[in-house]
Protein backbone atom coordinates (compact mmCIF):
# COMPACT_ATOMS: atom_id res chain seq x y z
CA UNK A 1 0.00 0.00 0.00
CA UNK A 2 1.15 3.51 -0.70
CA UNK A 3 1.33 5.80 2.29
CA UNK A 4 -1.17 8.59 2.88
CA UNK A 5 -0.62 11.54 5.19
CA UNK A 6 -4.21 11.36 6.44
CA UNK A 7 -7.42 9.48 5.83
CA UNK A 8 -9.70 11.21 3.33
CA UNK A 9 -12.49 10.78 5.89
CA UNK A 10 -10.84 13.63 7.77
CA UNK A 11 -12.06 15.99 5.03
CA UNK A 12 -15.57 15.42 6.43
CA UNK A 13 -14.39 16.68 9.83
CA UNK A 14 -14.19 20.36 8.80
CA UNK A 15 -17.24 22.23 10.14
CA UNK A 16 -19.71 23.54 7.56
CA UNK A 17 -17.57 22.39 4.66
CA UNK A 18 -18.31 20.07 1.74
CA UNK A 19 -15.11 19.24 -0.07
CA UNK A 20 -15.94 19.23 -3.78
CA UNK A 21 -14.64 15.96 -5.21
CA UNK A 22 -15.10 13.79 -8.30
CA UNK A 23 -18.35 12.26 -7.05
CA UNK A 24 -19.89 15.64 -6.28
CA UNK A 25 -18.64 16.88 -9.62
CA UNK A 26 -20.61 14.09 -11.30
CA UNK A 27 -23.68 14.63 -9.11
CA UNK A 28 -23.81 18.32 -10.05
CA UNK A 29 -22.72 18.04 -13.69
CA UNK A 30 -26.04 19.18 -15.16
CA UNK A 31 -26.60 21.76 -12.41
CA UNK A 32 -23.23 23.19 -13.36
CA UNK A 33 -24.13 23.09 -17.07
CA UNK A 34 -27.07 25.29 -16.16
CA UNK A 35 -24.83 27.66 -14.17
CA UNK A 36 -22.34 27.93 -17.02
CA UNK A 37 -25.15 28.66 -19.49
CA UNK A 38 -25.76 31.92 -17.59
CA UNK A 39 -22.51 33.29 -18.97
CA UNK A 40 -24.50 34.08 -22.14
CA UNK A 41 -26.67 37.23 -21.94
CA UNK A 42 -29.43 35.65 -24.07
CA UNK A 43 -29.61 32.70 -21.68
CA UNK A 44 -29.75 35.01 -18.68
CA UNK A 45 -32.71 36.74 -20.33
CA UNK A 46 -34.46 33.43 -21.03
CA UNK A 47 -33.91 32.30 -17.44
CA UNK A 48 -35.31 35.55 -16.02
CA UNK A 49 -38.30 35.32 -18.33
CA UNK A 50 -39.37 31.86 -17.11
CA UNK A 51 -37.07 30.24 -14.60
CA UNK A 52 -38.91 26.92 -14.39
CA UNK A 53 -39.10 26.46 -18.17
CA UNK A 54 -35.44 27.36 -18.54
CA UNK A 55 -34.40 24.90 -15.84
CA UNK A 56 -36.35 22.16 -17.61
CA UNK A 57 -33.88 22.38 -20.48
CA UNK A 58 -31.29 20.77 -18.19
CA UNK A 59 -31.07 17.22 -16.88
CA UNK A 60 -30.90 18.35 -13.26
CA UNK A 61 -32.70 16.58 -10.43
CA UNK A 62 -36.01 17.99 -9.20
CA UNK A 63 -34.31 18.88 -5.92
CA UNK A 64 -31.58 20.80 -7.70
CA UNK A 65 -34.15 22.74 -9.75
CA UNK A 66 -36.14 23.60 -6.63
CA UNK A 67 -33.00 24.75 -4.83
CA UNK A 68 -32.18 27.04 -7.77
CA UNK A 69 -35.70 28.50 -7.68
CA UNK A 70 -35.33 28.98 -3.90
CA UNK A 71 -31.78 30.43 -4.25
CA UNK A 72 -30.92 27.99 -1.48
CA UNK A 73 -27.15 27.89 -1.82
CA UNK A 74 -26.61 25.53 1.12
CA UNK A 75 -28.98 23.04 -0.48
CA UNK A 76 -27.29 23.48 -3.87
CA UNK A 77 -23.95 22.64 -2.27
CA UNK A 78 -25.55 19.71 -0.44
CA UNK A 79 -26.71 18.48 -3.87
CA UNK A 80 -23.17 18.55 -5.25
CA UNK A 81 -22.80 22.18 -6.30
CA UNK A 82 -19.60 24.18 -6.20
CA UNK A 83 -19.58 27.87 -5.36
CA UNK A 84 -17.44 28.89 -8.35
CA UNK A 85 -20.31 27.68 -10.55
CA UNK A 86 -23.14 28.82 -8.31
CA UNK A 87 -22.05 32.47 -8.34
CA UNK A 88 -23.06 32.56 -12.01
CA UNK A 89 -26.61 32.33 -10.64
CA UNK A 90 -26.14 35.02 -7.99
CA UNK A 91 -24.32 37.24 -10.51
CA UNK A 92 -27.31 36.87 -12.85
CA UNK A 93 -29.51 38.04 -9.98
CA UNK A 94 -27.23 41.04 -9.51
CA UNK A 95 -26.17 39.82 -6.07
CA UNK A 96 -22.67 40.48 -4.82
CA UNK A 97 -20.63 37.38 -4.08
CA UNK A 98 -20.73 38.50 -0.46
CA UNK A 99 -24.53 38.40 -0.47
CA UNK A 100 -24.57 34.92 -2.02
CA UNK A 101 -21.95 33.59 0.38
CA UNK A 102 -23.48 35.28 3.42
CA UNK A 103 -26.87 33.74 2.60
CA UNK A 104 -25.46 30.35 3.64
CA UNK A 105 -24.60 31.43 7.18
CA UNK A 106 -28.02 32.13 8.68
CA UNK A 107 -26.99 35.78 9.10
CA UNK A 108 -28.61 38.77 7.44
CA UNK A 109 -26.51 40.47 4.71
CA UNK A 110 -25.83 43.35 7.12
CA UNK A 111 -24.78 41.04 9.95
CA UNK A 112 -22.50 39.08 7.64
CA UNK A 113 -20.94 42.25 6.17
CA UNK A 114 -20.36 43.56 9.70
CA UNK A 115 -18.65 40.30 10.70
CA UNK A 116 -16.34 40.58 7.70
CA UNK A 117 -15.50 44.22 8.44
CA UNK A 118 -14.67 43.18 11.99
CA UNK A 119 -12.09 40.68 10.72
CA UNK A 120 -14.19 37.73 9.58
CA UNK A 121 -15.19 34.49 11.23
CA UNK A 122 -12.53 33.38 13.69
CA UNK A 123 -10.77 30.06 13.20
CA UNK A 124 -10.95 29.08 16.88
CA UNK A 125 -13.47 26.29 17.28
CA UNK A 126 -14.00 26.10 13.52
CA UNK A 127 -11.24 23.70 12.51
CA UNK A 128 -12.61 20.32 13.51
CA UNK A 129 -15.98 18.83 14.37
CA UNK A 130 -14.50 15.93 16.36
CA UNK A 131 -11.67 17.83 18.00
CA UNK A 132 -13.72 20.97 18.77
CA UNK A 133 -10.72 23.26 18.30
Amino acid sequence: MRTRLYSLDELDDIPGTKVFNAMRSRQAYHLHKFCMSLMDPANREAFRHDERAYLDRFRMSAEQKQAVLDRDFNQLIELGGNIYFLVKLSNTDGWSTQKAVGSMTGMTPDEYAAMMRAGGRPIEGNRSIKGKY
Partner: protein
Amino acid sequence: MARITAGIATSHVPAIGAAFDLGRTQEPYWKPVFDGYEWVKQFEEREEPDVVILCYNDHASAMMLDVVPTFALGCAEEFAPADEGWGPRPVPTVMGDPVLAGHLAEQLVIDEFDLTLMNHLDVDHGLTVPLSLMFGKVEQWPVRVIPLAVNVTQFPTPSAERCWQLGAAIADAVQAYPPNLNVQIWGTGGMSHQLQGERAGLINPEFDNAFLDKLSNQTDDLRRVTRLEFLRESGSEGIELIMWLIMRGALGDNVEELYRFYHVPASNTAVGHIVLRPR
Protein backbone atom coordinates in the same frame (compact mmCIF):
# COMPACT_ATOMS: atom_id res chain seq x y z
CA MET B 1 18.69 34.37 -22.41
CA ALA B 2 15.34 34.77 -20.69
CA ARG B 3 15.42 35.23 -16.93
CA ILE B 4 12.89 35.40 -14.10
CA THR B 5 13.50 38.71 -12.36
CA ALA B 6 10.68 38.84 -9.83
CA GLY B 7 7.89 36.83 -8.26
CA ILE B 8 4.67 38.55 -7.28
CA ALA B 9 1.72 37.13 -5.38
CA THR B 10 -1.70 38.62 -4.80
CA SER B 11 -5.26 37.69 -3.95
CA HIS B 12 -7.67 37.96 -6.88
CA VAL B 13 -11.06 38.72 -5.33
CA PRO B 14 -13.82 39.44 -7.92
CA ALA B 15 -15.20 42.32 -5.84
CA ILE B 16 -11.83 44.08 -6.18
CA GLY B 17 -12.33 43.94 -9.94
CA ALA B 18 -15.86 45.28 -9.62
CA ALA B 19 -14.71 48.15 -7.36
CA PHE B 20 -11.92 48.94 -9.84
CA ASP B 21 -14.24 48.86 -12.86
CA LEU B 22 -16.92 50.98 -11.17
CA GLY B 23 -14.41 53.64 -10.07
CA ARG B 24 -14.93 52.97 -6.36
CA THR B 25 -11.25 52.61 -5.46
CA GLN B 26 -11.24 55.75 -3.29
CA GLU B 27 -14.29 54.83 -1.23
CA PRO B 28 -13.51 54.22 2.45
CA TYR B 29 -14.08 50.45 2.20
CA TRP B 30 -11.83 50.00 -0.83
CA LYS B 31 -9.16 52.68 -0.45
CA PRO B 32 -7.03 50.67 2.01
CA VAL B 33 -7.05 47.73 -0.43
CA PHE B 34 -5.98 49.72 -3.46
CA ASP B 35 -3.44 51.76 -1.48
CA GLY B 36 -1.72 48.45 -0.78
CA TYR B 37 -0.92 48.13 -4.48
CA GLU B 38 0.52 51.60 -5.11
CA TRP B 39 4.05 50.35 -4.42
CA VAL B 40 3.89 47.53 -6.94
CA LYS B 41 2.45 49.78 -9.67
CA GLN B 42 5.56 51.96 -9.38
CA PHE B 43 7.72 48.84 -9.25
CA GLU B 44 6.21 47.49 -12.47
CA GLU B 45 6.78 50.82 -14.24
CA ARG B 46 10.46 50.55 -13.39
CA GLU B 47 10.80 46.85 -14.11
CA GLU B 48 9.03 46.78 -17.48
CA PRO B 49 8.63 42.99 -17.64
CA ASP B 50 8.20 41.51 -21.11
CA VAL B 51 6.21 38.45 -20.11
CA VAL B 52 4.32 37.30 -17.04
CA ILE B 53 3.73 33.63 -16.36
CA LEU B 54 0.51 34.03 -14.43
CA CYS B 55 -0.58 31.19 -12.15
CA TYR B 56 -4.29 31.48 -11.40
CA ASN B 57 -7.39 29.36 -11.22
CA ASP B 58 -10.34 29.42 -13.55
CA HIS B 59 -13.54 29.98 -11.54
CA ALA B 60 -15.79 27.88 -13.74
CA SER B 61 -15.51 30.41 -16.55
CA ALA B 62 -13.52 28.70 -19.29
CA MET B 63 -13.54 25.22 -17.84
CA MET B 64 -16.78 23.40 -17.35
CA LEU B 65 -15.96 20.17 -15.61
CA ASP B 66 -16.13 18.24 -18.88
CA VAL B 67 -12.38 18.09 -18.47
CA VAL B 68 -10.52 18.71 -15.20
CA PRO B 69 -6.91 19.66 -15.96
CA THR B 70 -4.60 19.87 -12.98
CA PHE B 71 -2.23 22.26 -14.75
CA ALA B 72 -3.33 23.98 -17.98
CA LEU B 73 -1.03 26.27 -19.96
CA GLY B 74 -2.48 28.98 -22.21
CA CYS B 75 -0.80 28.76 -25.61
CA ALA B 76 -2.95 31.17 -27.65
CA GLU B 77 -2.08 34.57 -29.16
CA GLU B 78 -4.77 36.22 -27.05
CA PHE B 79 -7.21 35.52 -24.23
CA ALA B 80 -10.55 37.33 -23.97
CA PRO B 81 -12.01 38.46 -20.62
CA ALA B 82 -14.79 36.02 -19.68
CA ASP B 83 -18.43 36.85 -19.00
CA GLU B 84 -18.92 35.62 -15.43
CA GLY B 85 -22.62 36.37 -15.32
CA TRP B 86 -22.69 40.17 -15.51
CA GLY B 87 -20.80 40.81 -18.73
CA PRO B 88 -17.04 40.65 -19.30
CA ARG B 89 -14.83 43.04 -17.31
CA PRO B 90 -14.11 46.19 -19.37
CA VAL B 91 -10.39 45.47 -19.55
CA PRO B 92 -8.11 44.90 -22.53
CA THR B 93 -7.78 41.53 -24.18
CA VAL B 94 -4.81 39.68 -22.71
CA MET B 95 -2.06 39.07 -25.24
CA GLY B 96 -0.19 35.77 -25.02
CA ASP B 97 3.23 34.59 -26.10
CA PRO B 98 2.67 31.38 -28.09
CA VAL B 99 6.37 30.90 -28.82
CA LEU B 100 7.47 30.97 -25.18
CA ALA B 101 4.34 29.00 -24.21
CA GLY B 102 5.25 26.35 -26.78
CA HIS B 103 8.76 26.20 -25.36
CA LEU B 104 7.41 25.82 -21.82
CA ALA B 105 4.97 23.14 -22.98
CA GLU B 106 7.81 21.10 -24.48
CA GLN B 107 10.24 21.53 -21.63
CA LEU B 108 7.76 20.92 -18.84
CA VAL B 109 6.34 17.73 -20.32
CA ILE B 110 9.86 16.48 -20.94
CA ASP B 111 10.49 17.24 -17.25
CA GLU B 112 7.57 14.95 -16.27
CA PHE B 113 4.87 17.62 -15.83
CA ASP B 114 2.04 16.32 -17.99
CA LEU B 115 0.36 19.65 -18.70
CA THR B 116 -2.91 20.27 -20.48
CA LEU B 117 -2.40 22.75 -23.30
CA MET B 118 -5.12 25.32 -23.93
CA ASN B 119 -5.34 26.70 -27.46
CA HIS B 120 -8.46 28.62 -26.54
CA LEU B 121 -9.00 30.11 -23.10
CA ASP B 122 -11.20 32.95 -21.87
CA VAL B 123 -9.77 34.43 -18.68
CA ASP B 124 -11.79 35.45 -15.65
CA HIS B 125 -11.21 37.68 -12.63
CA GLY B 126 -8.60 35.24 -11.33
CA LEU B 127 -6.26 36.47 -14.05
CA THR B 128 -7.51 39.97 -14.88
CA VAL B 129 -7.86 41.34 -11.32
CA PRO B 130 -4.13 40.86 -10.63
CA LEU B 131 -3.35 42.61 -13.94
CA SER B 132 -5.53 45.56 -12.92
CA LEU B 133 -3.85 45.73 -9.52
CA MET B 134 -0.32 45.73 -10.97
CA PHE B 135 -0.90 47.99 -13.98
CA GLY B 136 -4.00 50.06 -13.18
CA LYS B 137 -6.40 51.28 -15.85
CA VAL B 138 -4.73 50.91 -19.24
CA GLU B 139 -5.66 50.80 -22.90
CA GLN B 140 -3.42 47.80 -23.44
CA TRP B 141 -1.70 45.54 -20.94
CA PRO B 142 2.01 46.41 -21.00
CA VAL B 143 3.05 42.72 -20.88
CA ARG B 144 2.42 39.49 -22.67
CA VAL B 145 0.86 36.89 -20.40
CA ILE B 146 1.11 33.12 -20.32
CA PRO B 147 -1.78 31.86 -18.22
CA LEU B 148 -1.15 28.78 -16.10
CA ALA B 149 -4.48 27.59 -14.75
CA VAL B 150 -4.32 25.33 -11.70
CA ASN B 151 -7.14 23.10 -10.52
CA VAL B 152 -8.18 24.27 -7.08
CA THR B 153 -11.87 23.57 -7.70
CA GLN B 154 -12.12 19.80 -7.55
CA PHE B 155 -10.36 17.79 -4.85
CA PRO B 156 -7.64 16.63 -4.99
CA THR B 157 -5.82 19.72 -6.13
CA PRO B 158 -2.11 19.34 -6.81
CA SER B 159 -0.09 19.27 -3.59
CA ALA B 160 1.98 22.17 -2.27
CA GLU B 161 5.13 20.19 -3.06
CA ARG B 162 3.99 19.43 -6.62
CA CYS B 163 3.34 23.12 -7.18
CA TRP B 164 6.79 23.98 -5.86
CA GLN B 165 8.40 21.42 -8.19
CA LEU B 166 6.47 22.79 -11.16
CA GLY B 167 7.78 26.25 -10.33
CA ALA B 168 11.33 24.92 -10.24
CA ALA B 169 10.84 23.28 -13.64
CA ILE B 170 9.42 26.54 -15.04
CA ALA B 171 12.57 28.33 -13.87
CA ASP B 172 14.75 25.81 -15.72
CA ALA B 173 12.63 26.09 -18.85
CA VAL B 174 12.78 29.90 -18.85
CA GLN B 175 16.53 29.79 -18.39
CA ALA B 176 16.80 27.53 -21.43
CA TYR B 177 14.93 30.03 -23.64
CA PRO B 178 17.40 31.97 -25.83
CA PRO B 179 15.60 35.32 -26.37
CA ASN B 180 16.63 38.03 -23.95
CA LEU B 181 13.37 38.44 -22.02
CA ASN B 182 12.51 39.92 -18.65
CA VAL B 183 10.06 37.37 -17.23
CA GLN B 184 8.04 37.59 -14.04
CA ILE B 185 6.04 34.83 -12.44
CA TRP B 186 2.92 35.59 -10.46
CA GLY B 187 1.00 33.43 -8.00
CA THR B 188 -2.55 34.52 -7.31
CA GLY B 189 -5.53 33.62 -5.12
CA GLY B 190 -5.94 33.25 -1.37
CA MET B 191 -5.43 34.25 1.27
CA SER B 192 -7.75 32.65 3.84
CA HIS B 193 -11.38 32.57 2.77
CA GLN B 194 -14.33 30.22 2.67
CA LEU B 195 -17.24 30.77 0.30
CA GLN B 196 -19.57 28.00 1.39
CA GLY B 197 -21.74 26.80 4.24
CA GLU B 198 -22.02 27.87 7.83
CA ARG B 199 -18.24 28.43 8.13
CA ALA B 200 -18.36 31.02 5.29
CA GLY B 201 -16.47 34.19 6.10
CA LEU B 202 -13.63 32.34 7.78
CA ILE B 203 -10.45 34.41 8.06
CA ASN B 204 -7.26 33.13 9.68
CA PRO B 205 -4.73 35.98 9.97
CA GLU B 206 -2.27 33.86 11.98
CA PHE B 207 -2.09 31.26 9.21
CA ASP B 208 -1.89 33.93 6.49
CA ASN B 209 0.88 35.90 8.17
CA ALA B 210 2.87 32.77 8.96
CA PHE B 211 2.55 31.84 5.27
CA LEU B 212 3.86 35.28 4.26
CA ASP B 213 6.67 35.08 6.84
CA LYS B 214 7.82 31.66 5.65
CA LEU B 215 7.55 32.39 1.94
CA SER B 216 11.04 33.89 1.76
CA ASN B 217 13.25 31.42 3.62
CA GLN B 218 11.24 28.80 5.50
CA THR B 219 9.77 27.29 2.42
CA ASP B 220 10.32 23.68 3.49
CA ASP B 221 7.52 24.21 6.02
CA LEU B 222 5.15 25.48 3.33
CA ARG B 223 5.94 22.64 0.95
CA ARG B 224 4.76 20.21 3.63
CA VAL B 225 1.37 21.85 4.24
CA THR B 226 -1.24 19.25 3.30
CA ARG B 227 -4.45 19.89 1.39
CA LEU B 228 -6.31 19.03 4.59
CA GLU B 229 -4.40 21.67 6.52
CA PHE B 230 -5.07 24.32 3.88
CA LEU B 231 -8.78 23.49 3.90
CA ARG B 232 -8.98 23.40 7.69
CA GLU B 233 -6.85 26.44 8.46
CA SER B 234 -7.37 28.78 5.49
CA GLY B 235 -10.89 27.81 4.37
CA SER B 236 -12.19 25.78 1.48
CA GLU B 237 -11.06 28.42 -1.03
CA GLY B 238 -7.87 29.33 0.87
CA ILE B 239 -6.28 26.35 -0.84
CA GLU B 240 -5.72 28.71 -3.77
CA LEU B 241 -2.51 29.54 -1.88
CA ILE B 242 -0.82 26.52 -3.47
CA MET B 243 -0.48 28.70 -6.57
CA TRP B 244 1.83 31.04 -4.65
CA LEU B 245 4.19 28.09 -4.26
CA ILE B 246 4.55 27.68 -8.04
CA MET B 247 5.71 31.30 -8.11
CA ARG B 248 8.01 30.78 -5.13
CA GLY B 249 9.43 27.53 -6.50
CA ALA B 250 10.46 29.35 -9.66
CA LEU B 251 12.63 31.83 -7.72
CA GLY B 252 15.21 29.39 -6.36
CA ASP B 253 16.47 28.96 -2.82
CA ASN B 254 17.20 32.55 -1.90
CA VAL B 255 14.98 35.56 -2.34
CA GLU B 256 14.73 39.09 -1.06
CA GLU B 257 11.33 40.30 0.09
CA LEU B 258 10.77 43.72 -1.50
CA TYR B 259 7.23 44.47 -0.39
CA ARG B 260 4.36 42.97 1.55
CA PHE B 261 0.73 43.90 2.17
CA TYR B 262 -2.04 42.25 4.18
CA HIS B 263 -5.58 43.50 4.68
CA VAL B 264 -8.92 42.13 5.91
CA PRO B 265 -11.45 42.14 4.34
CA ALA B 266 -12.18 42.47 0.66
CA SER B 267 -15.69 41.06 0.39
CA ASN B 268 -15.25 37.54 1.89
CA THR B 269 -11.50 37.36 1.67
CA ALA B 270 -8.20 38.22 3.35
CA VAL B 271 -6.06 40.13 0.84
CA GLY B 272 -2.38 39.27 0.72
CA HIS B 273 0.30 40.58 -1.61
CA ILE B 274 4.06 40.08 -1.71
CA VAL B 275 6.88 40.96 -4.10
CA LEU B 276 10.03 38.82 -4.12
CA ARG B 277 13.31 39.12 -5.97
CA PRO B 278 15.44 36.02 -6.65
CA ARG B 279 19.03 36.39 -5.45
